[in-house]
């Protein structure tokens, strides 16, 4: 069994081994610590000259990485907590995401910024957020989120080795511990990779046709698939789950195709509800000609800061039972 954490860590090892121009910059990334969530463990021992532990300067290191990329290198930046991306927002939006376009396609800026988002660990308001929605829709920026239904390490390594554009790689603190659903771990699920769309479709093995589409990414997709199983076994409600791994640029067709088939859609995200990813997904569907969905809903984090106390935090972020409840409600006659 490979966890998401191991898959990402192995990918970083592979990338540093494969290409001398790959560099890693981040706070506290040196061994034996290997980064706050250990994704970078072992790298500084193996590639000492190319793994830089940095000052606490999120904007600065993202900017330095941009300069490296403009001059031919392929830097990877680890931002310790996703919450700290706000400090690098100017660099990301006004610098990294701009250079290629504003210099009239004369340059490329292949910087990969990896960072863990997400709550459910009691870290409180400034260390638990899911903030990528603020970066979706910045032209020139690619946003990826790995899934256990795919290959997290492969998604990361292809970005590091081949991406042409700056990329936010959104991880999740709890997803690190999830097993990747390869071969023997697939258990109850049938997983279909949807071609060039960076998306996956999950159904419960042997289930009848789905009556409702779930759409979720990252760790939320892991919670959604758990909800899917209980809905199937306890309520005999059969759903299918669409999991995009590229959030920007947004490829709507996998969600659209599934929703067209089932006629009902629930979009689930951990980030705060208002003006989030789900809002854009539903807007795209609303603008699609001749698509008549019976029912669409969003389930998301509350529009409040995230509390530290367990019971309060649970009530703030969407969980497995919230998904089940929402689906049941949507299906009530």
């Amino acid at each position, binding site marked *: 069994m490979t966890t998401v954490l191991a898959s990402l860590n192995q990918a970083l090892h592979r990338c540093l081994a494969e290409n001398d121009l790959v*560099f890693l910059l981040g706070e506290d990334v040196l061994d034996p610590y290997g980064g706050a969530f250990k994704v970078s463990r072992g790298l500084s021992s193996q590639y000492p000259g190319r793994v*830089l532990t*940095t*000052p606490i*300067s999120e*904007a*600065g*290191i*993202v*900017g*330095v*990485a*941009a*300069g*490296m*990329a*403009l*001059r*031919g*290198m392929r*830097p990877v930046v680890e931002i310790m907590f996703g919450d700290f991306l706000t400090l690098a927002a*100017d*660099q990301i939006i*006004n*610098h990294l995401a*701009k*250079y290629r*376009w*504003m*210099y*009239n*396609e*004369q*340059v490329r800026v292949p910087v990969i910024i990896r960072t863990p988002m997400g709550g459910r660990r009691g870290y409180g308001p400034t260390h638990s957020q899911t903030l990528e929605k603020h970066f979706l829709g910045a032209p020139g920026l690619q946003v990826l989120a790995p899934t256990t239904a795919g290959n997290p390490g492969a998604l990361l390594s292809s970005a590091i080795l081949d991406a042409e554009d700056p990329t936010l790689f959104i991880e999740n603190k709890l997803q690190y511990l999830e097993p990747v659903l390869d071969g023997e771990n697939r258990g109850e699920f049938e997983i279909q990779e949807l071609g060039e769309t960076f998306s996956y479709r999950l159904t419960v093995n042997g289930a009848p046709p789905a009556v409702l589409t779930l759409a979720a990414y990252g760790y939320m997709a892991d919670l959604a698939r758990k909800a899917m199983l209980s809905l199937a076994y306890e309520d005999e409600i059969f759903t299918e789950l669409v999991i995009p791994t590229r959030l920007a640029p947004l490829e709507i067709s996998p969600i659209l195709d599934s929703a067209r088939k089932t006629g009902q859609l629930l979009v689930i995200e951990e980030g705060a509800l208002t003006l989030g990813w789900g809002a854009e997904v539903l807007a795209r569907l609303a603008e699609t000609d001749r698509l008549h969905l019976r029912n669409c809903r969003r389930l998301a984090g509350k529009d409040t800061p995230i509390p530290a106390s367990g019971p309060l935090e649970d009530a703030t972020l969407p969980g497995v039972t919230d998904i089940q409840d929402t689906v049941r409600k949507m299906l009530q006659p």
Partner: protein
Amino acid sequence: MSIKTTQAPGKADHLEGAPENQAETWYRGMKRIRVFEETVLENFPRGIFFGTTHTYIGQEANAVGILSQLTPPDVVFSNHRCHGHFLAYGGSMHALFAELMGRATGVCGGRGGSQHLHWRNFYSNGIQGGIVPTATGMALAEKFRQTGAATVVFLGDGTLGEGVVYEALNMASLWQAPILFVLENNRIAQTTPINLAVAGSLTGRFSAFNIPVIELDSSDVQEIHPVAQTLLGEIRHGNGPQALVLHTCRFGPHSKGDDTRRSEELEQLRRTRDPVLIHAPRLDPERRAAIDAEVAQEVAGAFTRALADPYPNPLDEART
């Protein structure tokens, strides 16, 4: 003194007789910037330029003194006040006019405008301070790839208010980036005089990070050039980042017609601190007049050509 120069268009030896000497080359370099910028300001009211502009009038000796000694692999990152840097680097005057006019033939095809240029190893961006980490990263990349290139980044006094500048200075020093920080202190930021926005020491900002710094109060290219040469030499010898604090004068408005300084103050600056006037007497008057005539012709030609160039096609844009 032997110096290598980038091949600036218009810097060729058009003059009759002996080839252009260094004093003449510097003069031509500064004069090209001066006349270019005056032409921009004069013609702005005609509505032929998009957006705004920040002219380099009064600061020409900085760009020419420093950038005339770069070698082709060297890298330059400039800020909003980038026209002079771009021309001194060797960028095309016609392409710069065309960029300001939003033409397809502009430096960046009209996408960037006045503050967003890229050509060869020259880059600029209009976000104060944000370029400093980028430039630092570029210098580190050159160091890692062992190209021997030096990186030069320009910042103004007002930009010292941006925190990311200090993040970059810290990392440049920690990792010994081969970079020259040039602080062009014209004592004003838009309309804010330095005493209202910058506390403490200018040089201390660099020395606090163990970055050697030289301070120079001069508008004389002949004084600026050797100091920059010393600092670039340190960088090329692997002695890490260096800084140059250049006290200088902005003669023109911040952008257009937005100067809040007293006119007597400006006249006084123009009398005592004009880089072109300071340097002009070192040239043979006849050769100087010939350079003036050639520069006037070059600028007029570039301007007219750019004005006749086509706009980019929005349909092409939609396809990218």
